[in-house]
Each structure stands twice: as C-alpha cells, then as structure tokens.
C-alpha cells in the first residue's frame, strides 16, 4: 500500500485523471463566485470532447480541435446564460436540460456526420500529446508527475494561482464576487450583474470545453458516447467542497484524481472494472458527508425555496 502511494507512475496517472476535472471545476468556481449555479459542466464537457475529435478529424490539427471544443461548449453555456441570467429561468432545470441536450446532440451527430456509433477516432490518430519540459522532466518522481503533461495540463495548473489572483486582486474579480453575492447592491453601484454573469458562464464554457478536449483528444485519443461519465458532476462537487476557492477546489480535484488513478491501479491488479469505476463517486459521496456543514445555502435552495 505504502509503496503504491509513493509510486511515481501512480501520481502521474493522478495528474492525468485530474486535469479534465480541474479545468471544468475552475469554470464552475468562477460561475459560483458570480452567483450562477452551474451544473451543466458535464454536458459542456461532452460537447467539447465531441467537437474536439470532430474538428481534429477534419482539420488534422489538435489546436483547431481544442478551439472547436471551447466554441461548442460556449454555445451551450450561452443557453444557460440566456435562460438563467437574461430570462431568470431556473438554473438547475436549465443545467439538466443542457446535459441531456449535449448527450443527445453528440449521439445524434456521431452517426449523422461520421456514420459510426459508439466511438470515433480522428483520421491519422491525431491527439494532444504530452510535452515533457526539457531537463525538469528528468527529475525523479517530480519530473514524470508534474513536468510531463499536455499543454492543457500545464494550463490547468497555472490557472489555479491565476484564478486566485484574478478573483482576489483585480478589479474585474472583485466586481464579479460582488455581483455573485448581492447583485442588486452591485447594480446600485453601477456594476451590471448581467454582464459579469455572462462573462463567468462563458469562461466556464471555454474551460469545460477544453476539459472535454483533454478527455477525448488527450487522455484516450477517441470520442466515445457518454465519455465524460460523471466527471462534470464531480467538478460540480469539487466547487462545493472547495468552497469555490482555488486552493480548496484543487484539493478536492486531487482527491478525485487520486481515486480514479487508484482505481486503475486496482483494476490492473485484477479487481473488477465495475467496482473500480465506482471509486471516485464513492469517495466524492464520502467527502460530501464529511464536509456536510458547508451546504446550508444550497440546502435552503433544495428544501423548497427554489
């Protein structure tokens, strides 16, 4: 057990499992700070995963694929922004509908555009590759874990301090937090809640789309129906558990990344895949129970004050 914990290859697979969830969770965190309840991360990831593979197939280029992923997810994000912010619709219902829409759209377009069902690999097997940092990646343990990631992986890790700086040190970040907390008070002082909420939702779209690209083009190299398989929801929980603070969110994501990687490890040792698949969700549920005092405001929402 202890040997496994110290094993660098386990930790390398932790970072791999972590990156998509972390990217999506950062987006969710920005929305949470802006006062938009964002539960469509799962659907936006799916849309991103599909668009990334589709455009990488057409263009033969992962950068274009990633941009397409962000664009597709932003399109879904705009549905939430329009419905929940401009029309004051229920964000939970919209989020659920967007998730269903994403599953429907991807499984509709897959046969419609490429004539296949189930999975699809882009032509030439293009995928997002890892970029080892020269020199640093040679460091024992730390090198393979931290300095042998995809560009999106580095971006996700840099985004943690960057988001912290944005939220707590910049004018836009301060106003965004104010809008999230008391939109009417912010409006009285001349800050438009609508504009900041749109900004946050679009940002979450970009990030969840890229998370999808990392998942399909990066981690596996193919698109598979329902491939996000709950990672978007885990990102939602990470925002809750991490109290929408970058450090907390990173911590929560690490926990899930570890659960997933550890599950893979157990699978390698002969444990049934059906059991190990459940591990991240069981860990997530356990963490929710342990952190239970934190959800009073969300509970208010679900206990009949919607």
């Amino acid at each position, binding site marked *: 057990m202890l040997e496994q914990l110290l094993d660098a290859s386990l930790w390398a697979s932790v970072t791999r499992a972590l990156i998509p969830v972390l990217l999506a969770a950062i987006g969710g965190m920005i929305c949470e700070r802006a006062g938009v309840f964002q539960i469509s991360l799962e659907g936006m990831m799916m849309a991103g995963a599909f668009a990334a593979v589709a455009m990488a197939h057409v263009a033969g280029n992962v950068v274009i694929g990633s941009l397409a992923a962000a664009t597709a997810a932003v399109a879904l994000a705009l549905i939430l922004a329009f419905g929940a912010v401009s029309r004051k619709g229920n964000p939970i219902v919209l989020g659920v509908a967007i998730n269903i829409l994403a599953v429907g759209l991807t499984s509709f377009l897959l046969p419609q555009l490429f004539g296949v069902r189930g999975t699809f690999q882009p032509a030439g097997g293009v995928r997002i590759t890892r970029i080892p940092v020269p020199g640093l990646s040679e460091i024992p343990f730390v090198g393979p874990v931290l300095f042998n990631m995809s560009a999106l992986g580095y971006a996700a890790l840099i985004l943690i301090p960057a988001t912290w700086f944005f939220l707590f040190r910049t004018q836009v970040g301060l106003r965004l937090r104010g809008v999230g907390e008391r939109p009417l008070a912010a409006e009285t002082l001349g800050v438009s809640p609508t504009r900041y909420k749109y900004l946050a939702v679009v940002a979450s779209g970009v990030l969840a789309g890229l998370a999808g690209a990392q998942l399909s083009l990066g981690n596996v190299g193919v698109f598979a129906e329902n491939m996000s398989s709950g990672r978007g929801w885990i990102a939602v929980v990470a925002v809750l558990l991490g109290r929408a603070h970058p450090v907390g969110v990173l911590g929560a994501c690490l926990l899930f990344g570890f659960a997933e990687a550890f599950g893979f490890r157990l699978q390698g040792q002969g444990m049934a895949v059906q059991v190990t698949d459940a591990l991240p969700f069981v860990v997530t549920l356990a963490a*929710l129970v342990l952190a239970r005092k934190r959800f009073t405001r969300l509970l208010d929402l679900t206990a009949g004050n919607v």
Partner: protein
Amino acid sequence: MLEVYRHRASSAVTHPVTLALGAAFGLGGIIIAVTGGNPFAAFSDMLLGAFTGSGLRNTLGRSIPIVAMALAVSLAFRAGILNLGGEGQMLMGALTGTMIAITVPGPGYVVVPLALIGGALVGAAWALLSALGQTRVGVPLLITSLLLNYVARSITSYLVRFPFGEPGAAFATTSPVPPTARIPKMELLGMGRMSISLVFVLALVILLAVAYRRTVVGYESEMIGLSGPFSRYGGVNVERHTVAIMAAAGAIGGLVGTHLVTGETYRYIDADMIAQTGFAWTGLMVALLAFNRPLPILAAGILFAGLQIGGFAMERSSGVSWQLAQVIQALVIVALVSRFVVTWKRTGSDGDAPSEANTDPAHVGSV
C-alpha cells in the same frame, strides 16, 4: 419549483408549451437541414411512425416507463425536492425484481407481485439514501441522488456480470425470466398485445391527480415546493414529507425497472438497461413540460414516447439518426424555461416603503 413554470392563462397558440414545442421542432428541423437531411420528410416519417399502425402500440408501450418516471419526478419536484436519481432507483429496483422473478418458484400471481414489491422496496431504499442524507446529515439531495446513479450502475453491472450473470453468456446478462413470472399482456383495441402495466400507470395518473388536488398531503407538499419557511411556519413537517416523497418516487422507479425486464425484455442485460435509464431523464423532461400535473403528464409522456418511436421510423426511412428525438426534447425544456418565466412583481408597495426589495433575490447555489 413550480413558480418557474407558472404562466397566465392564454390561448392555445400563444401558450408557452405550444411556443416551446414550436421552437424546438423548428430548431430540430434546422439541425436536420444543416446535417444534410430533409426536415419535412423526416418529420412526416416521424409522425407517421409514431402514431399509425403498430407505431401507436409501440408508442403507448414506451409511454409506460416514461409516464411513470414523470409521475415520480412530479412527486418530488412539486415539493421542491430535486431528485435526479431516477436512473439509479430504476436500475437497483430492476435487478432486484428480476432476480426475484428468476429465483422464486411459484405461480405467476405470487411471483409477479413479489418481484414488483421487491423492486419497489429496493428502489425506495436507494432513494432514501439521498433523502436521509439531506434530512439527517445535511448533504444536498440534488447532488447525492445524481452521484448515486453512477454507483448504482457499477453495482448492477458487477452483479449482472458476476454473481447473477448467466454462466457462459457472451455479454453481461441474467438468465431469462421464466414465462410464469412475467408481467402478463393483454389485447389492446385490436392493436396487439400490450403489457397490463399500462393499466396501472393510468391508475397512478388518476391517483396522483386526486392526491395533488384534493388531499391535505397534496396541499402540504405543494406548499413546501412554493416556500419552505412558510410551510414550516404552518406546521408542515418538511423532513417527513421529503423522506416519504423520495421513498414513493424511488418505489415508482423500482417498479418501472422491474416492468422493463419482467414485462418487456425478460432478461436483465447490463448494457441494455443502462441505455434504458434514458427513461428517467425523458420522464423528468415530461414532468417539467407538464408543470408536474398528472393528466398533462400523460399527454406529454405519450408525445415524447411518440417522438422516440417516430425517431426510429425516421431513421429507417429518412436516414436521420433517431437521437434527434432526444435533442428536440431537451430543446423543448430549454425553450420553455428560458422564454416563459413569470416575474413576480410585488405590486403595491408596503405602505411607506417603496417596492424596491431590500434584499437580493434568493442567491442560487452558493456554498
């Protein structure tokens, strides 16, 4: 929850539901056109496939799980309980019911009810995990009910693959349900054979229609959905309602799951059942479209079932993938929620105080 969809009475044409359906079909048509199909041909294939000939029977058959799941959702949503765990409740109940049907010997009139009761109990128990998690532990039901779907998938997959699996099968499945333990079929209006579950679903529609409109519990649960603090003030036990409603919703999920195997496919095939969990989400959308009211749920459920059955027909004849049906359904909900919202304006200020609210609107979803 309800207030989001409340609307003023208006003519059928400008009714929000009509407009949402129109918008969704319009967008669906555009999607077909953009991806190289003919929307008019596709939609007419869909319509004919859904509501003519054997299509109508298939549509009614498919509306059984959809309407039942929608009724389960309406129970919870009316009371502001955001149960997203229909999937898991269905799967857990389905496997339990199937195993009872396979293993318990005896005549059908004993085994079939036993399987249904077993499925309902386990479905309810699975739903209670989230309910008690919220009322006793303080973890939001919205999140736990959803996460438990994935856990339920794993548990059922494992059980069907290993302990309950048919030995030597190429894929994960149980052995077939013996003919005596299957839910019987009936002749339906000359259209062919139809599961008698349809009768029970219709009975449930009527039961809930009466319960919602004419009973104290129906009133109390609606009030919880409209305002938690107001209900507590009036002596409504919000926690007890939450637990009871979740148990009922989970039981319906378990019944639907059991019906899908012992009434339709006669084998619990893992991959198949995971695909069938789509009924939970279709049911959720039906409940939303019908404003949680039972009779409209029946109508909307048949409509959405028809969309799916028609989708298969459309795929066969026009080559447009049937998943378009799912896209259109989700678009209906998006259109409905985005476009038609009543904004409650407090008319008449509070005497001296101007109508300017002194607090921000309910802050949605903060930690």
